[in-house]
């Protein structure tokens, strides 16, 4: 296999990078970990005229807690960096766990959270948990920075709101919040290196046994990661029980439109949404951020 020819740039600053991308036009692409775009290029699904490497933008690798803002993850943080980060584990172990379930160890050492989001495949493992926790993303372009909630970031398979001319994803913020538990359950057909057949993330705010607030995000069952709001409504304000969560699971099935492919039929995926919504809710309710 080979990569089609392209020009290569490694700018030293974010400003330089965005300027370069504007100058080179939309056929140039930013290069983060490369674990997605290089595969696409080898498979003939992408042939950028230039790759603008972000490797020198070390400030975008940072992971930190900012009081008042929350958990800030630089877009170039690798999956293993997120998995191993004490700050992440301390505040949202569920994000660390989700990062650990992604691809395999070698890919996690290269692949970045920003790349994972911008690549926008419907089965991606990080979006469900980040959306469930209300994350927002910041992009910097020639016209400055803008921030959008992650739930409105994705527009379709491999499509997101990022502007092709010069915009670069810079950070992901998971706000300070009163959620008491969150989790991501991935169902893949192998225990490593598998895409999710179904992924379900939940975040709940409990008041004793009463579910005050819940967010349920489903992955791999629609063209974008999708919030199962109707399912959350079924349980909010109620005392949790297995029967109630089963009800939420069944309602969540109405919030997805999975396809049938080599990883599973739509019927199977729907039933898995029911099962894993129930299980993910119970886990977040009873075990906290895991």
């Amino acid at each position, binding site marked *: 296999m080979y990569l089609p020819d392209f020009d290569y740039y490694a700018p030293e600053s974010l400003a330089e990078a965005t300027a370069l991308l504007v100058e080179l036009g939309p056929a140039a692409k930013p*290069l983060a970990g*490369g674990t997605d775009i290089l595969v696409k290029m080898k498979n003939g699904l992408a042939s950028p005229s230039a790759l603008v490497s972000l490797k020198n933008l070390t400030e975008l690798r940072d992971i930190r807690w900012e009081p008042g803002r929350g958990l800030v993850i630089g877009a170039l943080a690798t999956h293993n960096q997120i998995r191993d980060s004490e700050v992440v584990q301390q505040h949202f172990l569920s994000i660390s766990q989700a990062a650990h379930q992604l691809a*395999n160890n070698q890919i996690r050492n290269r692949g970045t959270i920003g790349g994972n989001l911008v690549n926008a495949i419907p089965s991606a493992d990080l979006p469900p948990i980040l959306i469930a926790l209300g994350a927002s993303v910041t992009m910097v372009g020639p016209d400055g920075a803008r921030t959008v909630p992650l739930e409105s970031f994705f527009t379709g398979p491999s499509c997101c709101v990022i502007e092709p001319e010069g915009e670069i994803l810079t950070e992901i913020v998971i706000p300070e919040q009163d959620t008491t538990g969150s989790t991501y359950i991935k169902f893949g057909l192998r225990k490593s290196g598998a895409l999710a057949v179904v992924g379900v993330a939940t975040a709940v705010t409990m008041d004793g046994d009463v579910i005050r607030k819940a967010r349920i995000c489903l992955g791999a069952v629609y063209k974008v990661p999708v919030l199962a709001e109707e399912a959350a409504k079924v349980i909010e304000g109620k005392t949790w029980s297995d029967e109630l969560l089963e009800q939420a699971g069944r309602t969540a099935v109405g919030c997805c439109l999975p396809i049938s492919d080599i990883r599973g039929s739509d019927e199977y995926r729907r039933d898995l949404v029911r099962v894993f919504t129930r299980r993910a809710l119970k886990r977040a309710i009873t075990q906290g951020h895991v």
Partner: protein
Amino acid sequence: MQAIADKQGVKRYLVDVTVNGDDYSVVVKANTLLVNLLRDEIDLTGTKKGCELGDCGSCTVLLDGKPVDACLVLALEADGCDVITIEGVAQHGELDKLQRSFADNAAIQCGYCTPGMILSAKALLTRNPKPTEPEVRAAISGNLCRCTGYVNIVKAVMAAASGEVTA
């Protein structure tokens, strides 16, 4: 980065990379992958190609200490980095304890996954000298082996970690 264009207008770039402690400066096209730089330019063929898509881990090398698939890293991205390949694991002709343990525990069959396996295991033991069996399995789960069922590979890594094998 400075580049020189060839007759067809395709640019060449200079990569400075340290491999197994030795400094190399190599002129490459942008599309040159680290695995090709190592195999074709530096003749370190211990780094294998198995799938070229990051599925099998045969081309695993340590890039600044971390295991990565050399088939998914541009040579240019390794500019200024430190790379360890399987040829850099034994020191002065003395096998590393992992290498010895793989030999002693019948963890090698065809040997094609072995370089990548050893490097993934090496990175694990550097980070976590006394791993549990599930940790060992997780650390090598990006390295496929078609011969061993991983049974003796896991055993070999555990034995190396427990000090049963001395280098």
